[in-house]
């Protein structure tokens, strides 16, 4: 599950710094990632901090323990062919699809708001709308360990690729709009 540790155990030397973030308060309005982004990258008055210009990409995994089927390119047309190439080694693991579509309601939106390319993986929605998910019945026994391993492989590989590129990933123009979950 931990892409950083997995890369390190292989003795790889990524060219860019890799940060691992575990967010809290997502369901209440992406509190953790939104405050992190404000503290590090851009405030509510759209003042850009120097760090904002140095982040190539943010990758998000949120929707339970179902395996990865692909990734949302979040309307970033330039990034789509890049992700298609990065996903190729994992077609046999069932991760095949890069969609140009947006997806919402999770922590990559905080980064997208601040002009940093942020992407969410597409996952199998296991038990997603049942009584286990988002409740105190959602315990260890509901984890699909084999699916989590597949997800760790795909996420680690995407993070590694992003850490090795000469240039940062292409960005969309900064919108300077109030954040979707502001005031939640």
């Amino acid at each position, binding site marked *: *599950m*931990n892409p*950083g*540790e*997995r*890369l*390190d*155990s*292989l003795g*790889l030397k990524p060219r860019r710094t890799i940060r*691992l973030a*575990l*967010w*809290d*308060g997502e*369901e*209440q309005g992406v*509190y*953790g990632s939104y*405050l*992190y982004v404000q*503290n590090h990258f851009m405030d509510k008055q759209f003042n850009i901090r120097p760090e904002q210009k140095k982040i190539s990409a943010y990758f998000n995994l949120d929707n339970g323990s179902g395996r990865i089927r692909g990734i949302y390119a979040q309307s970033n047309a330039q990034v789509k*062919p*890049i992700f298609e*190439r*990065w996903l*190729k*080694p*994992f077609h046999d*693991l069932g991760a095949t699809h890069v969609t140009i579509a947006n997806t919402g309601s999770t922590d990559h939106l905080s980064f997208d708001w601040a002009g940093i390319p942020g992407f969410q993986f597409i996952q199998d929605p296991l038990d997603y709308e049942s009584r286990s998910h988002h409740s*105190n019945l959602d*315990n*260890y026994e509901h*984890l699909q*360990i084999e699916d*989590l*391993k597949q997800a*760790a*492989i795909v996420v*680690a*590989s995407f993070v*590694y*690729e992003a850490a*090795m*590129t*000469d*240039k940062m*990933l292409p960005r969309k123009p900064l919108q300077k709009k109030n954040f979707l979950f502001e005031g939640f």
Partner: protein
Amino acid sequence: MRKILPLSAALLLSTFITFGQANPGIADRIRQAELSSSQIPWIAHYLTDVSGPRLTGSSGYMKAAEWAVATLKHWGLTRAGLEPWGTFGFTRA
């Protein structure tokens, strides 16, 4: 047209080099490492069963978060730490 074609081919090639796979063998190495010696079961065990229920900002959450920071530091990520997420969160008395 004869001049434009090689130019566009060169542009495509440079895009491919810039954003191609850094090293095609790495994906396989990551895959083999995860499938042969995954850390997921015990990490998940500590984050869930050992930490207990983890509502935002609750004591169970803090237990899991502090375990994560300590574990990351143990792995050599010396700058691991907690960042603020606002004032939301409580443990029901």
